[in-house]
């Protein structure tokens, strides 16, 4: 049967074009790849190549014709012994349906939240009488890595100064000695490259822990974190993912100015395909890091330099895990909910202590995981208190607090007795001068002020 040559679409947006010129005449032999015609679009002149072999039997659209719609038959190609009057092959496939419309979650949950919130994972019971060991956050993080490396030979750690130097902040202290250079790997200063190497190794099933000396330098590598680590599982239809932890100190240290003082919680929490964890206590640091290393997904694990040296009780258990995605009530209360995490918890707890003296009883939630966000715990608390203050070191615009405020409006608007208040870092690059730096950061006083504002007291 003769084969119809159709007016081709030559760009994602082309709907019609002009048939500028025929380069073959009726009766000419054509081979696959031969240019048979020229077509003009609004952008360019393009060549049409034959895909099939045969004789150009009949030209259906003469040259010079304007506005020929895409998919209009423009010529017939004949096989051996065929004539143009034979019925043309209608093998032309039909155009695809219009793209599927995004659907809301089963219960019609708002598009902004995507899927309806899943039930938060269960917290592990610490048996009564368990010995609690005073441990710094630094030691807890190291212990978590060491335990997981003992447990699973596929876990390894790489980064700048992690091995021989024992870690720029001494988080990997002792790991080289115990696990050797094969599994504790000093990299060159090459964040973009080694983040990609980690993700590639993760694609094959290894479980890298990639340390950024600080998260400020992860901006060099953010393409590999977002475009490769977070999206590949989806783009591969579930075939290729990576179990990888990107970890390191996040946020402002002290007096290191703008390029070294930045909070990345909202940056990474924006990305579907990532989990984002940011602990406050040593116990949570240990239990969450162990969970992060075991998690089959990429996890961004945000630590805090100022907290590294702080001591907390850590349960002495063989395998202490804290679930990702579960917030914790750090201090119960009834008058106002304060949501914080990481270093923000120091300001939140200090504020709650002061507020109690004024008979304002704040419930302090330690978020621990930023993505997935444990809205269930926040909402339950807000239903009780009717008021909410969020605390974060990051900038105010498009921050985690903004997201929490929006979600409270979605899910608990009727329970609110006051607008949600955000306490954040000031909307400026971090200044160096001691007095200005202090002004740029949240403080317990700012949290107190916000709590009093929402409780009208």
């Amino acid at each position, binding site marked *: 049967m003769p084969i119809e040559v*159709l*007016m*081709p*679409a*030559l760009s*994602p947006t*082309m709907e019609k074009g002009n048939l500028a010129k025929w380069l073959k005449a009726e009766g000419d032999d054509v081979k*696959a*790849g031969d240019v048979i015609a020229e077509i003009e679009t609004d*952008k*360019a002149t*393009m060549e049409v*190549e034959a*895909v099939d072999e045969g004789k150009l039997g009949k030209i259906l659209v003469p040259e010079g014709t304007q506005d020929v719609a*895409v*998919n209009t038959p423009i010529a017939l190609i004949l096989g051996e012994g065929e004539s143009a009057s034979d019925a043309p092959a209608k*093998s*032309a*496939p*039909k*155009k*695809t349906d219009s793209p*599927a*419309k995004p659907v809301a*979650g089963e219960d019609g949950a708002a598009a902004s939240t995507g899927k309806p919130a899943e039930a938060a994972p269960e917290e592990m019971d610490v048996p009564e009488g368990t010995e609690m060991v005073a441990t710094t956050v630094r030691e807890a993080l190291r212990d978590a890595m060491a335990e997981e490396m003992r447990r699973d030979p596929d876990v390894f750690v790489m980064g700048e100064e992690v091995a021989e130097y024992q870690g720029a902040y001494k988080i990997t202290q002792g790991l080289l000695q115990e696990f050797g250079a*094969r599994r504790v790997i000093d990299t*060159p200063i*090459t964040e*973009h*490259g*080694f*983040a*990609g*190497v*980690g*993700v*590639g*190794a*993760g*694609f*094959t*099933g*290894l479980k890298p822990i990639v340390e950024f000396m600080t998260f400020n330098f992860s901006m060099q590598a953010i*393409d*590999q974190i977002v*475009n*490769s680590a977070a999206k*590949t*599982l*989806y*783009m*591969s*239809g*579930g*075939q*290729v993912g990576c179990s990888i932890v990107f970890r390191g100190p996040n946020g402002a240290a002290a007096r290191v100015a703008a390029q070294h003082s930045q909070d990345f919680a909202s940056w990474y929490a924006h990305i*579907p*395909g990532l989990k984002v964890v940011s602990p406050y206590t040593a116990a949570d640091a240990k239990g969450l890091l162990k969970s992060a290393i075991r998690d*089959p*997904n990429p996890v961004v694990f945000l630590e805090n330099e100022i907290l590294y040296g702080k001591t907390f009780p850590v349960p002495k258990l063989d395998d202490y895990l804290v679930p990702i995605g579960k917030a914790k009530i750090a201090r119960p209360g009834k008058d106002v909910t304060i949501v914080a995490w990481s270093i923000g918890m120091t300001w939140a707890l200090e504020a709650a202590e002061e507020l109690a003296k004024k008979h304002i009883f704040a419930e302090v939630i330690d978020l621990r995981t930023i993505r997935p966000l444990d809205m269930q715990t926040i909402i339950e608390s807000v239903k009780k208190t009717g008021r909410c203050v969020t605390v974060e070191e990051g900038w105010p615009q498009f921050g985690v607090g903004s997201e929490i405020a929006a979600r409270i409006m979605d899910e608990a608007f009727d329970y609110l007795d006051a607008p949600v208040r955000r306490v954040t870092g000031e909307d400026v690059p971090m200044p160096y001068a001691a007095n200005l730096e202090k002004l740029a950061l949240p403080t317990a006083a700012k949290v107190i002020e916000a709590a009093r504002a929402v409780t009208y007291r």
Partner: protein
Amino acid sequence: MPAAAKADKADKSVSRATKTAAWGKEQELKAYREMLLIRRFEEKAGQLYGMGLIGGFCHLYIGQEAVVVGMQMALKDGDQVITAYRDHGHMLACGMEANGVMAELTGRRGGYSKGKGGSMHMFSVEKNFFGGHGIVGAQVSLGTGIAFANRYRDNGNVCLTYFGDGASNQGQVYESFNMAELWKLPVVYIIENNKYAMGTSVDRSSALTDFSKRGASFNIPGEKVDGMDVRAVYDAGLKAVEYARTGNGPFILEMQTYRYRGHSMSDPAKYRSKDEVDKMRTERDPIERVRNRILERKLASEDEIKKIDAEIRGIVNESAEFATNDPEPDVSELYTDVLR
């Protein structure tokens, strides 16, 4: 004579196939068949694009077939492949099914990524093909990481990491070169120098256009190869893969090749002359070269070759048929595969 073609012929440093014994019938026919499958598949993809069945970007591999086919013939089971967005040829060469690749191009549920990746993002763990990446240069670090895993596991596998002349100017390529040589990773970097990155010719983008020397400051050896001759590719590939497999670290192969089509479907390719393209097609075409060799050496008759042609056409037509009739993914797939 167009500059590109002339330069290639005159350049004595370019490896041309002469080192291994002449191929026998089986190898010549295999190379012919595999290259033809890619050529016909790509022509069909172009046609389906023209009909609006394939959307977005679609980067065809026509002209470059000898590179992946020759390299694939030099591999062992277990070796991995990773490349950028001009990836259909690589997938077919890895043994991925034409149906699944074409159905991904049309965004259907039977596609390798269930229709969620498209032309630029496809994977097959089974065939050790790791994508399919849309960010120019990203696959170079990723491939280096796959090689890192090979070394970590000491499994004797090599990762072929393909990238373009344009990608060769990305910073992470050199970060990867450094680590690969430092840690002696089993990776072969294959720079597919098809003379252009979109509309920018190599002379306009690159201070050093001899890409085989791009590893020099890391002590990585390199070789320029006639990428339009599948045997030359195979010979160089064997050597490079062996070098990497035996613990010597990375090797760079600059494949001198050429794409006949525009960068993507909507590129009218006004930055080069018709002559230049025609010269390449008529004088250097990788498929014609093998075909002529087969006929001259009487390894197969015209009829046998015609039979292969018909068989390939059948596979390709069936893939188009499948990719047209296979349903789009179920709407519930919108939310799957975000996390495991």
